[in-house]
């Protein structure tokens, strides 16, 4: 996984609650194995049915082209667990999502793709909204994972919390599978025990 240390750039505000992953990547982009994921990102919000850009949508405004930071409403990424949502967001250029309460599957998928999900309480979220709306993409924000802070123009800084383990995994780009396989002996021991106490748990699947 590509490590995440910090990101600096435009922070695009998307102040909608409960944006679901069907909105983030519509199923039309799931049908093609080699679909252009960046094109599919929030496709129906960014473009009209005839394919022309909606110039009033935040990500279609020039200062937010390729914005690496997305500021979201509550429960962002709810619905389907499709990881394509994070892939499309990354392909578009977003490396950090800030919100009060991202949906669980979505947050997990971010962590596994080197995308930093920043979760803030309502009070700090309000300050981010104010900052982002005031700056309106004309000046960059920095989200610094090492320092656990968001910095903006005029020396503004705002701390955020993230667990040490998640922070380290992102900073180092740690491989989840390698981390788990350190427990391989415990996995094997569990299997041996299960085979003894409840053998049907370890019985091979039969199709019919």
């Amino acid at each position, binding site marked *: 996984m590509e490590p995440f240390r910090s990101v600096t750039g435009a922070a695009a505000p998307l102040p909608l609650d409960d944006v679901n992953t069907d909105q983030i990547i519509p199923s039309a982009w799931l049908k093609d194995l080699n679909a252009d994921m960046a094109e599919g990102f929030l496709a129906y919000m960014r473009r009209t049915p005839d394919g022309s850009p909606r110039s009033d949508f935040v990500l279609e405004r020039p200062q937010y082209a390729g914005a690496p930071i997305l500021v979201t409403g509550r429960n962002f990424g709810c619905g389907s667990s499709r990881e394509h949502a994070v892939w499309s967001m990354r392909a578009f250029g977003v490396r950090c999502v800030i919100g009060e309460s991202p949906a669980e599957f979505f947050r997990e998928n971010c962590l596994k793709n080197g995308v930093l999900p920043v979760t803030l309480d309502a009070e700090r979220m309000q300050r981010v909204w104010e900052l982002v709306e005031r700056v309106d993409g004309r000046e960059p924000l920095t989200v610094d994972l090492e320092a656990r802070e968001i910095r903006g123009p005029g020396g503004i800084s705002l701390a955020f919390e993230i667990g040490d383990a998640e922070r380290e995994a992102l900073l180092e780009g740690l491989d*989840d*599978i390698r981390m788990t396989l350190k*427990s391989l002996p415990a996995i094997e021991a569990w299997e041996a025990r299960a085979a003894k106490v409840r053998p*049907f748990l*370890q019985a091979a699947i039969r199709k019919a």
Partner: protein
Amino acid sequence: MRPKPGEAPVGKTLFDKIWDFHHVATRADGRELLYIDRHAVHELHAPHAFGEMDAKGHTVRRRDLTLVVQDHTVPTRTGMPLRSAHIDATRLAAQKHAVSLVDVASPEHGIVHVVTPELGIALPGLTLACPDSHASTVGALGCLAFGCGTTELVHVLSTQVMALTRPRQMRVNFTGRLAPGVGAKDLALHLIRTVGVDAGRGHAIEYAGEAIRALDIEARMTLCNMTIEWGGRTCLVAPDEKTIAWCQGRANAPSGAAWDEAVAWWRTLATDADASFDREITIDCSDVAPQLTWGTDPSQAIGVDEPVPSDAQERTTAALGYMGVQPGAPLLGVPVDRVFIGSCSNSRLPDLRSAAAVVRGRKVAAGVKAIVVPGSSTIKREAEREGLDRIFLEAGFEWRNAGCSMCAGANGDIGEPGERVVSTTNRNFENRQGRGVRTHLASPVMAAAAAVAGRIVDVRDWLPAETA
């Protein structure tokens, strides 16, 4: 054992019992490694996941505990070639990695959440991983299932464990009895509108209470299927005698002495009286009417006899605008263009039977395109043996082959812009069933009645006199 005065409760929840049994180790980052007894994968993710396995040089650790299914992209129209890029790539990957594949032409083919219980792959007390947010459908059997993304799918393939943070726990107690014409789908929608779309965040849910005990297993699956629609991480229903009877004789269920031992274990899988939950909710079912969504998330639901909300919130206005429904007016009488009966929410035999009972001897209204897509080929065969296909076909429904179809639209089964669909699926999101398509979630009987009437109706008016 009850705690002594002053002692903390010692009881375990159903969730605790299954989780603790499957706990393997705690990883360096604090995540708990949970052993996965059964891993079911579908073709929307399989090509990406197996591609990643190849790229990283990983092998499938327990091929014998892994099952691959084709469901999301499978064409369902009779006579269409059963192909898609995903289907072809998944078949090749399954062959290469030597894992079991329920392929499109197999007699067991169907939606992963329907097929795993049918084959006895999902069973009480087991853990199951599936890269799909509706994995918790099989919680209805007391099988602890976790959905996940593609990267986690690669992790499970490579290790046979999931690295999870132990969720908080919530119990939802359903009291009272459901009225005739009201079923598990109505219960799910009523619950979601009551608690909101993110109330379950971070929680494993246990559905309990007399109304749950009264539901048949398939109806419990409908309720469990909708858990993610209010943010729940997973869910369980304690196995009971209905569950045990349902599982007996299935292809992967134990038999002989092993069956007796399994049953003895399953009978211990209930929440202890002195166990505690982080949150408890009680829902009275007695007054629940058939539910229908009016908006663009599953909490935007009303009883069929209620008016659509007329508040001025931006969110309500946006949903009303997309859906083209009038604030303050009932949905009754609103004309429909399509009806879809199917999906992992409502495509099982009792769903089809109840819909057929409404349709029998009637005709689909002129101009309405109505389709039935059974959840599996097994269900399709059984339905045909009972003559349900004839009832639907004679009424003017299409009787399709099994698959996810119009639920996710990933096989191209979608509506036209502006069309209004009454759908037995689980998501009424904007554009989910096709760009600009307006989805009203409802039960199979409500969908069937809408197909016949050509407009939204109250199915309770259609019930035979003896049940009404």
